[in-house]
């Protein structure tokens, strides 16, 4: 009985859908042009979201042209330090004049221009204007500052709770301690070894929580994309690279330049390959985190954009459901990428510290 009634409901639904579809077909033509416009707007919004920004905008009202958020300090090095508020750019709409120099915000980058804000392009449509060194406290820097202070207070309180509570964590520490132990027991010790893992723990713990929290922050509606920024992942990977090579022992370098146990000819062939590997390893770290986070953001934003583009009444709930499911997946990815980054860093440290065993 139950089965039949379910089937009947589906049949009725399908009938209603097709009839609605017919009605919608007529309206489609009219909306098509407006749709194209919306599509490009969503794309622009998405691209803008993926990039760093010189002000912190939560949302904007298109009709009145108002932006809700707060400006951030701009710090430029252009024959002297220039510090001013990003409100001078009016979200890229106007030219900022500082000490007789004119600057314009174009595609999230600051260019030096004349008073009118003209930007000259080369044949590839790249601006040819001079770019001053930009040390601005951008949205990503603010996000990192926020996460850094959050981490500091959280782990400081965990550290303090041990003293207060006779070696047993309280409050948020009960959640954090297993994670710290996870990094130690599942990442550091198996990859680096019982003897040497201690000196890498600070870096591994910091990078694990830093990347994870930043990934999670990227999933909030605040709309930042720090770990999907190549400069950030480059910085993190560079640190892994430097630590690996500066703490490496003789055995590690021996395996790179003069691989033991192979003929001399092969040693010569292997040396450049191994040397390349030294750079490729952190490079893959950088690209992996960047690409994963960027892809996640693009997919979710595109599907959210679909909600607005959907013509059919079923489209929006479907897109919403999809976005919801993907967001859950992204939550997993956020933790997974932090884990992978930390895990591979630990693996590289372990390689650099491997003792000869022949």
């Amino acid at each position: 009985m139950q089965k039949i009634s379910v089937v009947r409901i589906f049949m009725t639904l399908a009938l209603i859908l097709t009839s609605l579809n017919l009605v919608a077909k007529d309206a489609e033509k009219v909306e098509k042009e407006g749709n194209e416009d919306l599509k490009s707007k969503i794309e622009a919004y998405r691209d803008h979201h993926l990039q760093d920004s010189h002000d912190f905008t939560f949302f904007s009202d298109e009709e009145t042209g108002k932006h809700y958020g707060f400006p951030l300090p701009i710090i430029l090095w252009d024959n002297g330090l220039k510090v001013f508020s990003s409100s001078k750019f009016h979200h890229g709409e106007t030219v900022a004049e500082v000490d007789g120099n004119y600057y314009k915000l174009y595609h999230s980058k600051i260019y030096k221009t004349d008073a009118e804000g003209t930007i000259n392009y080369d044949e590839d449509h790249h601006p040819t204007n001079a770019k001053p060194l930009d040390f601005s406290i951008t949205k990503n820097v603010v996000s990192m500052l926020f996460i850094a202070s959050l981490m500091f207070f959280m782990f400081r309180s965990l550290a303090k709770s041990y003293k207060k509570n006779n070696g047993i964590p309280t409050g948020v520490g009960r959640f954090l301690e297993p994670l710290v132990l996870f990094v130690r027991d599942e990442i550091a010790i198996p990859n680096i070894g019982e003897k040497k893992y201690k000196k890498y723990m600070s870096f591994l713990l910091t990078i694990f929580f830093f990347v994870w929290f930043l990934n999670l922050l990227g999933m909030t509606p605040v709309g930042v994309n720090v770990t999907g920024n190549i400069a950030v992942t480059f910085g993190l990977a560079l640190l892994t690279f430097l630590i690996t090579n500066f703490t490496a022992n003789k055995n590690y370098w021996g395996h790179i330049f003069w691989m033991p146990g192979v003929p001399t000819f092969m040693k010569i062939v292997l040396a450049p390959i191994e040397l390349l590997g030294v750079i490729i390893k952190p490079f893959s770290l950088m690209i992996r985190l960047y690409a994963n986070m960027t892809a996640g953001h693009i997919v979710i934003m595109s599907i959210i954009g679909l909600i607005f583009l959907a013509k059919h009444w079923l489209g929006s709930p479907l897109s919403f459901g999809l976005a919801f499911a993907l967001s859950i997946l992204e939550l997993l990815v956020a933790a997974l990428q932090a884990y992978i980054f930390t895990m591979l860093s630990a693996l590289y440290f372990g390689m650099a510290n491997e003792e000869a065993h022949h």
Partner: protein
Amino acid sequence: MEKLINDFSFGLFFWQILLFVGLVLLLRKFAWKPILDSVNNREEGIKNALESAEAARKEMQNLQADNERILNEARAERDGMLKEARQLKENIITEAKTEAQTEADKIVAQAQATIESEKKAAIADLKSQVAGLSVEIAEKVVRRELADKDKQLALVESMLGDVTLN
């Protein structure tokens, strides 16, 4: 690749490195070191506690075994002592019995001896009394007899005859 390089912002990289290295150093001093030390201490503590519990358990077992042994020893000793006491008691009783027997015998013998001597004394007394009585009787008889001369002679005669017969 070109897009990546174009996206690369040196300022962001600079701040990122600065912030991250600062964070690592700060957290190392204020968080990671105390946290890991505390956790290590706690783990050491748990390990030690388990080990000492195990040691205590073993000691307890040893103690129990010791107790058992001591108890057994005590029991054996008690049994021995009881046995000894019983033997002693029996010895004492038998000794006392024999002693009593000999004493009794002695007393009986003494009593018999006394009885004998008493009997003898009584007999002697009886004899002397009988003798006195007979002398008295004899005196009286003689006094009467002697009043008659013939009778006196006949008496002497018969007496003499008796003496020889004795």
